């Protein structure tokens, strides 16, 4: 009974109801609540569908129920066209999820960006991740015009101005300011390695309250980076969440390393995949190991699991890693007890496909 009341106080009666904003918080979102309460958080990302069917979005989000604190909705990631992050988030917030909307500067100028920030907040989005974005050449529309009117740091500043000064960049006042928990991305694993901490410091100064990193496959580089970040006290000024990827095979890993800019994968990881009898299972074990090592790294507030094409294993990986402890993240009720449980059938299928490929 007591539990039920706590639940209502914490999450509202209906899943889509806005929560009350707590003192000292900048948004009324659940993600900010969880991260500020000091829990080790798990976030993941949803691949937006190439479809107009909202059920497809919900089915994809459903895979993560009970295992993640927030879902990032990617914004044309890799410069490929999909349903927009705003559309995905609007569907997710209606079902009560706590999405993090990704905003990339590639496709919109500052007029469109500010308008969409207001729209996102109006549609119940409480967290935004400000990105510069991949170049158009990386995606399926290389002939498109790259906009890049703002960069990630200008976008952070813009979001802060909208939220804290309740005005547009032009100075025109807003009637109601958006309440957004603002995040930025970092990539501590690529050159210039020695300046990556400075870049993090700049993003925090520009207004980043949480940070999500690119894939971490090199725990040594992470430790060096975090040690320097902690020296500067940056882990106290923002919540740093480290990215974890799930690799399907040594070939995938090599392809990612060669073709996706900003992905650094050490040879040792590729060797592990090569030597494993079931590379797919090994890829998941690597993710589990990394999550545990990341949790042990001082100054880290959580992990961001990017399991593109391995989404149905997210629950399994999070469970195996044990990073959540006894905590069970919010999920739309009633919680389907079969979610995140991999059946022997799935296991067999996975073994079969990995020997074939």
């Amino acid at each position, binding site marked *: 009974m007591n539990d039920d009341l706590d639940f209502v106080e914490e999450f509202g009666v209906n899943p889509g109801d806005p929560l009350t904003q707590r003192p000292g918080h900048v948004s009324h979102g659940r993600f900010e609540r969880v991260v500020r309460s000091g829990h080790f958080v798990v976030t993941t990302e949803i691949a937006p569908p190439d479809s107009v069917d909202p059920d497809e979005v919900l089915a994809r989000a459903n895979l993560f129920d009970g295992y993640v604190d927030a879902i990032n909705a990617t914004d044309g990631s890799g410069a490929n066209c999909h349903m927009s992050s705003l559309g995905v988030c609007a569907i997710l917030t209606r079902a009560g999820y706590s999405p993090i909307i990704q905003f990339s*500067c*590639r496709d919109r100028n*500052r007029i469109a960006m500010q308008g969409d920030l207001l729209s996102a907040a109006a549609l119940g989005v409480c967290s935004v991740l400000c990105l*510069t*974005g*991949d*170049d158009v*050449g*990386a995606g399926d529309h290389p002939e498109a015009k*790259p906009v*890049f*009117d*703002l*960069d*990630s*740091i*200008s976008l952070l*500043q813009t979001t802060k101005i909208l939220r804290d000064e309740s005005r547009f960049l032009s100075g025109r006042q807003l009637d109601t300011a958006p309440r957004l928990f603002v995040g930025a*991305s*970092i*990539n501590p694993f*690529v*050159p*210039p390695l*020695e*300046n990556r901490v*400075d*870049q993090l*410091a*700049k993003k925090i*100064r*520009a207004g980043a309250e949480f940070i999500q990193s*690119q894939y971490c496959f090199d725990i040594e580089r992470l430790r060096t980076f975090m040690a320097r970040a902690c020296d500067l006290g940056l882990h106290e000024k923002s919540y740093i969440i480290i990215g974890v990827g799930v690799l399907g095979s040594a070939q995938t890993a090599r392809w990612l390393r060669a073709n996706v*800019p*900003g992905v*650094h994968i050490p040879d040792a990881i590729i060797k592990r995949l090569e030597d494993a009898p079931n590379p797919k299972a090994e890829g998941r074990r690597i993710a589990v190991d990394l999550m545990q090592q990341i949790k042990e790294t001082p100054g880290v507030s959580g992990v961001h699991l990017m399991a593109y094409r391995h989404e149905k294993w997210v629950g399994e990986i999070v469970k195996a890693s044990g990073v959540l402890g006894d905590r069970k993240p919010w999920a739309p009720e009633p919680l389907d007890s079969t979610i995140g449980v991999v059946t022997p059938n799935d296991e067999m299928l996975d073994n079969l496909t990995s020997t074939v490929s």
Partner: protein
Amino acid sequence: MYAIRRWSSAHARFLERIYTATRPGILAGLRGVTRLFGRRLDTPITAAERLVKGVVFDCQMCGDCVLSKTGMTCPMNCPKSIRNGPCGGVRENGMCEVKPEMRCVWVDAWNGAAKMKDGDAIKDLEFAVDHSRIGQSSWLRLARDE
């Protein structure tokens, strides 16, 4: 041009010395000229700025020059025109993700800034460029205190 601009980033300290030594004189001169001639000499002055900075820095005439804060490296050569770089896509060998044959502008910028006396200015937050100023002279803007 690419080779010259790389040289400029590598010799950022040397160029910084020239910049600090000549800046007051150039600005005073330009102030005198603008007072005497109003806007009549804007075109040749802008052309001169375009020529000099174009040769030395591959300057793109954004109209809001930050060279002295970015390790004597013009950030407008970044294909994503990032004013607070680098982005997360820098290749393992320090090359640009969009143009693999080009060194990342911001890798050069941070290296250049590390050599400079006032190199810490690279840590200042810059806001995105004002597009209404593109093609205009930064020198004249400074001289007129706009």
